[in-house]
């Protein structure tokens, strides 16, 4: 995390602020994660290596189709359950909890 952070700052310095705040921090199952802006919540879940949801028989699942069809990426976002996370962008301080 720290390495990524430093590299990001270096990048900003080189570009003389052309790219302004380009990362944001959210939590996934309580753990903070820093991602580039424009990252979807489903991508953040894959980065974290946690399941997005557990199936009706309790199996862990992760996002599959990436385009709003399979519904495996559903998770609870800021308290709202069953959100299609592949069609949702990460936001600062967003709280994502696997289902």
């Amino acid at each position, binding site marked *: 995390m720290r390495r990524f952070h430093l590299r990001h700052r270096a990048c900003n310095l080189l570009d003389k602020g052309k790219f302004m705040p380009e990362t944001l921090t959210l939590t996934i199952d309580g753990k903070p994660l820093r*991602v*580039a*802006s*424009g*990252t*979807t919540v*489903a*991508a*953040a879940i*894959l*980065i974290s*290596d946690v*399941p997005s949801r557990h*199936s*009706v*028989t309790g*199996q*862990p*699942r*992760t*996002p*599959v*189709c*990436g*385009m*709003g*069809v*399979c*519904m*495996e990426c*559903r998770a609870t976002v800021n308290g709202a359950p*069953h959100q299609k996370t*592949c*069609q*949702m*962008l*990460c936001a600062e301080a967003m709280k994502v909890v696997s289902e």
Partner: protein
Amino acid sequence: MTHYDLLVIGGGPGGIASATIAAEQGLRVCLVDENLALGGQIWRGVATGQSASHAAGFHHWAGRFARSKARVLNGRRVVARVTPHTLRLEADGIAEDIGFNQLILATGARERLLPFPGWTLPGVMGAGGLQAFMKSGFNPKGRRVILAGTGPLLFPVAALAKQKGARLAGLFDQAPISQMLSLLSALAMHPSKLLEGAGYSAQLFPTRLQTGHWVARAEGNEKLEAVIVTDGRREKRIACDLLAVGYHLVPNLELPLLFDCALDEEYVAVDELQRSSVEGIYCVGELTGVGGLNKALVEAEIAALAAAGKPGKAHALHGAQRSQHAFARALDRAYCLRSALLDTVTDETIVCRCEDVRHKDLRAARDWRSAKLTTRCGMGPCQGRTCGGATDLLYGWPRQSLRPPITPATVATLAAEIEAEDTVPMA
């Protein structure tokens, strides 16, 4: 309720081009897309700076679209048809009706996913899925990745994964080499596609495509650890972290079926002006044959000109239209699925991922209806969109009729339907 001359559904290349050209011709146009940013799958992530592939084409069309008078509604899902000229949309639980005289459907395609033992393990995803995730912030750097399934999509996904630092552990297409060579004559008409393919092969070196190989099963405890690949005679076990597997594309037919558009085998039947069997409804892009970007653009231009009452202007485009159509059919033949793929499915293999319904519980069902009643197969949140591509092949169940809501919607959205019919006048 807002009423438009032309409503375009789907914000990929076909939808953007249709809406732009029709608006330039003077129609009042609205483009509706369920994603937050326009671009569809091929131009995904370009607008948010996460992907640069095909960026020039996207920026050309996005700029032209922005300069046109077409309106856009993002993040809206079509839920139901209220009248033959009104659609119900939903965004963040809020319902909205929209009226139209004519409709262009450009809803694109999704990946065909097929069940095999272990396909529900974390770490197994679609090939198009991996591409979409990489274009929206996921980096597979350092992970061992296997690409498998069938279709031309496997190449760009493998190349992008490698470029991002993934360790490619294999690239497998189920199609035999003889079947794929049949594509060469079709590709002779499209030299740019040949060059593109050669470029990917060079980028992927030393990994090469192994034809005639498919996934027999995936293994792992709680998450993917290895994939067993077969050529029908010998199996080999390859340790990996991610398996991206998809079996070419199938058109998103929900909306054409909602409007009762006639089909020609797996695609919507259209005439040379992209008109479906239903008056005032045009279909473009993957809906009429999976052929990619250029096919969608030429069909969009023809449909938009026809909708604007200027079909004569489309005259010069029919040659390209026919050639793109022929290419799409050649792709289908080259990537035709072998029946051995289905033999990998065992009694215990989950077929319906939403409801965890296993093969042994579905074999006996006569049709979708009885399977739904006894097992809930296809009744989960994806509404059979994922397992439908497999149950077709596995059980030969006839196509089920489509009933709204076509995507999960709130009760309030559906209840608002009655009110709209009673009180909202057509413009």
